[in-house]
């Protein structure tokens, strides 16, 4: 721990708390989940970085979107994301959420996930190795430090646009808006 850490802890203890205890939602959204069990068990041990899986989204602040997102999963992802308390961070894992990856011409997978929910960082590759998860976590620390992991703020700000995109793909959502949407 360098000298600055202590100052940071005194200045913004809550932020440092969020940063070093990232609790990930346990949600297997795609095939990227295959590298998550090795990462959280003895050999790679993500707990060194403060990353732990949690059972419910209500207690989580990190959402790892592991792999391709089909239209049906998108509904579950939005619901899970909206249930998480703020501040919350999302990381897209693998090439598929970025731009569709190798399913670029599939009729049932989402091509750009950041058009439906805000994403703070991406891990490219198919499959990214466990080390890549840890690199992403340390990058996320830097972003949190600089207040640049602001996905949840962008979600508030552009909620109307996100909601419009979500409704377009899912043909109407069966739950009320999370934030008030002004009539335009």
């Amino acid at each position: 721990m360098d000298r600055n850490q202590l100052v940071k802890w005194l200045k913004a203890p809550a932020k440092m708390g969020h940063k070093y205890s990232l609790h990930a939602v346990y949600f297997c959204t795609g095939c990227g989940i295959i590298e998550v069990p090795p990462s959280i068990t003895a050999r790679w041990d993500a707990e060194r970085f403060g990353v732990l899986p949690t059972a419910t989204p209500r207690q989580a602040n990190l959402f790892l979107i592991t792999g391709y997102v089909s239209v049906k999963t998108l509904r579950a992802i939005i619901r899970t994301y909206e249930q998480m308390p703020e501040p919350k961070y999302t990381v897209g894992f693998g090439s598929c959420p970025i731009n569709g990856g190798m399913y670029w011409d599939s009729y049932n997978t989402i091509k750009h996930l950041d058009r439906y929910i805000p994403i703070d960082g991406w891990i490219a590759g198919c499959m990214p190795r466990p080390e890549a998860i840890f690199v992403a976590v340390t990058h996320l620390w830097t972003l949190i430090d600089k207040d640049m992991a602001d996905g949840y703020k962008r979600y508030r700000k552009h909620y109307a646009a996100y909601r419009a995109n979500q409704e377009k793909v899912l043909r109407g959502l069966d739950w009320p808006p999370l934030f008030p949407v002004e009539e335009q």
Partner: protein
Amino acid sequence: MRELELYFGPQHLGMVGNFSITLKVEGDRVVKADANPGYLHRGFEKLMEQRSWIKNFPMVCRINVVEPDSMELAYATAVESLAGIEVPERAQFIRSIYLELARVGSHLFGLWAYSNMLGFDTAAQWAMYHRDLVLDLFEELTGGRVYHIYIWPGGVRRDFPEGFEKRLVETLHSIGGCVPDYDACFFDNRLFYDRAAGIGKITREEAMEMGGTGQALRATGVPYDVRKIEPYAAYDKVPWEVPTREDGDAFSRIWVVRDEMIESVHMIFKLLDEMPKGDVYNRIPNPFKWRIPEGETYVRCESSRGELGLYLVSDGGDKPYRVHFRTPSYPHGLTILEKALVGESISDVGNIMISLYVVAPEIDR
């Protein structure tokens, strides 16, 4: 008592994979179960109709992330049988060793999921660590940890690297040396027996009329294994046994998995002893201009979850005309699971599902 509808999954700690079941419950008992797949549907078979024969190899392995290798084998054998390509003897042996190694890795993953589900964290951590050792071998052999794309029409991509056999044997010995520990900690544990015996019971007749294969069927005493009844690769070159159990419940299925892993490791040792020298690859035509003669074929192989089939049609073009995978989780997860859940308690849903080894991406494709 009042009936309630309960949505189990996809975001649920008791659910491994992106899958959901709609349960009708009365108190704690499941009255009716409706499997609700489709969260991972990518339309693989449609995508494969738009890619050339060789470009489909990166596609097929992604159908099942837990054990991609049997998918590669099914597609490669189907292409070989349509195009009339022979596979050298050494490549057959390498394929068998590679597939058995994949089976061990896949079963260890299943063991992780199962023991984690029951709360046996120690066994779960061991299983995941040992699977990682297997993945290290795959990485050395193929360059990839998860997706290998190693089996190719006409053989395998490359021969074993220098000293690989020695490291393979060492790793398998170090995993096999832990079997007594696994037994003491998990398999012979009274708590495991109490949680699994008599749970999710299916009889032999039910399993057969619902298309069960793999450990779902072998746990009811039927020694049905495609490696025996229609041998492919080098499975008919060495002697081996099909482990079975009689009871047909979750306990027997997990024990069948354990015995199968041990049998696979022994089989690898026997195959290594018998392995001939020679080429591992027969040349195929230029893959960019490759056209495969008109025809259709059905091939099958034994994956770690059961029988895997592939129906492949070619219209003489440079792309497949129709691809359809018969994946083992399909009847297990959609027909048998719905039957096996009835009358069980909610806390055993994940237990039964993992003991049947339902892998969601393979159902949805």
